[in-house]
């Protein structure tokens, strides 16, 4: 989980950095916390666990599609946790190690 990503809309960079710092919607974190821990008020350690769950979802999309570039419009449901507007117009790229 040391991977870094670049999220772009056209050529504009919306986020560049560690995948673990990916912007995630708070309501998704709470929803996941209730699902996993039965807790609507997760502590920081539980929040950190939940973030890793979302990051794993994204990493699996890269892995399962054997790609380093994802068009979010193809995975709107799976990526709906990302806290960015209009996901259908963004791309997510794994930095380095291009195919």
């Amino acid at each position, binding site marked *: *989980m040391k991977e870094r990503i670049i999220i772009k809309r056209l050529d504009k960079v919306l986020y560049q950095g560690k995948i673990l710092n990916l912007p995630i919607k708070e309501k998704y974190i709470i929803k996941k916390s209730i699902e996993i821990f039965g807790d609507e008020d997760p*502590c920081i*350690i539980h929040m*950190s666990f939940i973030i890793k769950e979302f990051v794993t979802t994204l990493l699996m999309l890269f892995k399962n599609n054997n790609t380093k570039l994802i068009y979010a419009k193809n995975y709107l449901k799976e990526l709906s946790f990302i806290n960015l507007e209009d996901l259908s117009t963004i791309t997510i790229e794994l930095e380095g190690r291009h195919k």
Partner: protein
Amino acid sequence: MKVYLDNASTTSVSKEVLNVMLPFFKEEYGNPSSLHEIGIKNRKVINNARNKIANLLNCQRNEIFFTSCGTESINWALKGIASENNTKSDIITTRVEHHATLNSCEYLEKQGYTILFVDVDNKGFVNLDHLKSLISESTLIVSIIMANNEIGTIQNIKKISEICNKANTYLHIDAVQAICHTTINLQETSIDLLSISGHKFHSPKGIGLLYIKKGTHIAPLIHGGQQEQKMRAGTENVAFIVGMAKALEIGLTNLKDYEERLNTYAKMFLKRLDEAKIDYLLNGAEIGKNRLPGNLNLSFKGLDGQVLEYLLNKKGIYVSTSSACDSESIESSHVLKEINVPKEYINGTIRFSIGNYTTFDELIYVIDNLIEIINQEK
């Protein structure tokens, strides 16, 4: 494959322990204080369990008091002594104690007691000279964790007890992590109070005991009925008391084999990491008589322990980090900070605690996956 390497957090209830407990949930449900057949039977059962435990620990039966857990025992030991003996002002402990001790001391500090911390070295051993220098006529009690729950370091309790005995202070030993994992003989050391928790040695969560040496002046923590010689009120948890006595019997009977087997496993684990050229530190004492068998508290350079724990969990491998959360950040363990684990290692710490039921094949699976994950995360 699922591999549980978090036995220092808690253990499974063994089949033998479960079997002796089961009748007390259904047929043998009488209150031990009742003077009818099923009550009287359970009074006898508790007394027999107490006798068995006293024999195993080499103490007297009326020195054993059942509690709900290790934390209750520790709270009782410290607050009970403080409440009953307010002519002395100082309490001595270490900064590598369990939070049950640290937070009880913090509470007592607010009540006016002075808390003094004895130094530990970079393996977690108590500095005996520093203890001698701190101890005085004002010292009410010294409280030391016998085997550290995080790094597994086992203290020289005999030496510590000699120092306390000479200074005429009470000595409380937190043996929660130690019992059934290393030898304790209450006749060979001058311990006044000793805390034990059942779930660390294959009996259920929710049962513990406090050994209180005869003649110790201590107040109850929980007030109510006349149970436990009027010292710990509350209807006795018969099933769990019976279970804990059985677990203690099994654990102490098999201790030598357990120690040898787990130390062999632990050495093999580290050898494989060395062969794979993994950059790690073993926190605490060297593997052997001064370290809990099967405890491997390892810090991996430049890695994130939380991530390692998460990725191992995805492989069905269950371990612990020692981190704690405050409101806004994840804090490194107070124990690791106290023994000065270097900053490039401290965040990459995982505690693997091998248990009695861990198999060789399971360990191979863990090591293979761990090496793969570390190489991927480097």
